[in-house]
């Protein structure tokens, strides 16, 4: 038994054959939905399958996936980070300041911006650990503070004269279909998967999320773990924000909405659809990847179908509801046949 991790994380004795139990996983379900919707959209509309649309879809997917990752790493430890949007915008504006105002080359501006994201995240972590309060209320407060300070410092003015390289990166197109942003997201995804599977730190994070007391008894330093996970969340939010900057070619304070609120829905949709438990201790990086991808795909497809731009949100909400209900049903079914839920 490793570190008090729940049985369900890996030492399963399935009552079903291997392949069949994979079919019942969340990830396969998401993959099937992605393919299914993809075919339906491609056949149903003239534009969905065009190289240009798939390229722009991939680009938007990449950003939503990163935002989902930023929330996922905090959900893993049983917490929430409502300030992902605010931290992201602060990172982006820092990048703008460093590269436009201070004239630093990208090699310094990008790490600088990400470092700020990490610091803000670490600040969240420290506040949470020191006060012992729930991360919901702390990050609700810091979301206001971070955003407010950012707006005050920048006077809500955007950085519009960024180096051409960054928007070129956003516009680049490989093989006619693939955006480099998507490659970055996939790379980050692989790193996160490695973090949780292979490194002690990753396992400690999951342990802390699954059962904090048990983890502490097993020697996990909870305080350090929480701070590190929020730091990671801040860095990931920064990467997402830089991707947005690459796509638009400018660093705008309004990029994530008021207080960064616009990022909250995509931040949760991906990981939750992907099977992360809000209580912590269980995340699926692949699931979060596929979950965000599915949401982006459906949004894109609905637009193609001329479903009024305004009704898209309703469909997304219904999708989330159906997904959690299906997941509940799936787990109940698996429990009833004696297999262990994944």
């Amino acid at each position, binding site marked *: 038994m490793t570190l008090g991790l729940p049985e369900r994380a890996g030492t399963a004795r399935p009552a079903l054959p291997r392949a069949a139990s994979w079919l019942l996983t969340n990830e396969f379900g998401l993959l099937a939905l992605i393919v299914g919707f993809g075919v339906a959209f491609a056949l149903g509309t003239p534009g969905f399958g065009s190289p240009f649309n798939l390229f722009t879809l991939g680009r938007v997917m990449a950003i939503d996936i990163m935002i989902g990752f930023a929330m996922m790493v905090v959900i893993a430890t049983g917490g929430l980070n409502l300030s992902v949007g605010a931290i992201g915008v602060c990172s982006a504006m820092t990048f703008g300041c460093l590269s436009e105002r201070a004239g630093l080359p990208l090699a310094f501006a990008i790490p600088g911006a990400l470092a700020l994201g990490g610091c803000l995240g670490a600040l969240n972590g420290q506040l949470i650990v020191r006060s012992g309060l729930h991360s919901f*209320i702390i990050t609700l407060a810091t979301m206001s503070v971070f955003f*407010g300070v950012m707006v005050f410092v920048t006077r809500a003015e955007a950085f519009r004269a960024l180096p051409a390289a960054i928007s070129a990166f956003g516009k680049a197109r490989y093989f006619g279909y693939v955006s480099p942003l998507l490659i970055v997201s996939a790379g980050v995804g692989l790193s996160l998967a490695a973090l949780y599977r292979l490194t002690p730190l990753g396992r400690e994070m999951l342990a802390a999320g699954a059962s904090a007391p048990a983890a502490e008894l097993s020697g996990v330093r909870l305080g350090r773990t929480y701070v590190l996970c929020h730091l990671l969340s801040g860095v990931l939010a920064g990467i997402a924000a830089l991707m947005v900057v690459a796509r638009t070619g400018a660093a705008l304070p309004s990029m994530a909405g008021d207080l960064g609120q616009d990022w909250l829905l995509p931040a949760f949709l991906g990981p939750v659809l992907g099977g992360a438990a809000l209580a912590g201790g269980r995340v699926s990086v692949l699931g979060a990847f596929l979950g965000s991808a599915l949401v982006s795909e459906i949004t894109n497809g609905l637009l193609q179908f001329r479903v009024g731009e*305004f009704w898209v949100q309703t469909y997304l*909400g219904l999708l989330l509801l159906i997904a959690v209900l299906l997941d509940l049903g799936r787990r109940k079914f698996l429990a009833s046949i004696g297999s262990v839920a994944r």
Partner: protein
Amino acid sequence: MKPRLRLWLGADWFGPLAIILAASIGITIFDPSFLSPFNLQILMLATAVNVVVAMSQMIIIAVGQMNLAIGAIGGLAAISFAGLMQVWSFPPALAAAAALAIGVTAGLLNGALIASTGISAFIITLASLSVFKGADLGITRAQPFYNIPAEVKALGDTTILGPIPWLALPAALVVAGMWRLLNRQKVGRYILAVGGNASAAELSGVSISRTILWAHGISGFLAALAGVMLVARLQLGQPSIGDDWLILSFAAPVIGGAALSGGHVSVFGTLFGVVIVAVITQALVIFRIDPFFVQVVLGLLILAAVGLNRMREVRFAGA
């Protein structure tokens, strides 16, 4: 310390009230127009709507959950109210009743899903937030309903007894009603019990599902009421009503001493929390301080409030 004084100092509403008095005195010294009738009217108008929003969230905090959808429910109710009057010529009273019914139904839907599936309120209300907001925008195509009947506009505009706006009346009724509910009514006691310790409550015979339904139904009703009041105040049916309710709806109860884990809220503390926010916002305008600062101040207030609550929990345990 005298027992009565100790009781008061330990009360949730004492801190916020003290802050309000101190701030008001301070601001008035600098700028006497702060206490002018027109200014008081503005303060009361802002507070009236916001206190109903805060109560809507407070009742859910009491039961130990969070309701992310109050803004969306409020927006949907607001445009239904305005739309029924403009497009289908409903009389205002009927349209308001319909809007409130929509709010209750939305709340009950949330409650039913939460109670029957056991899925966390966070996820359910996140999903329903999208559904309702999408419906709100879809019906209105993001354009407000401009034709609000004169009686409704008057409700939002006129005052009684000097500077007290008409809208303060429903707000006062809500505050009184909530106090009675949580302190005198069975349902209120059940809500606090389930929020405090659900298993113990269940063992004592409280039906958890029913209690959750009650809480969410009330929350939906209050959210819809706030939406309708805002239509009267803004004098149009704006689909974006409710978009900025999230932070305030948590800030006020928390400043007022609510425990996010459930089981402990203070009605008057929440009321004073709302007043503090209104006073500070107004002060920033009076002193021509950068309005961007409001966000920072709000966030710091929340941090300070939860920090203080924590300390008080330790210090006055049992008071």
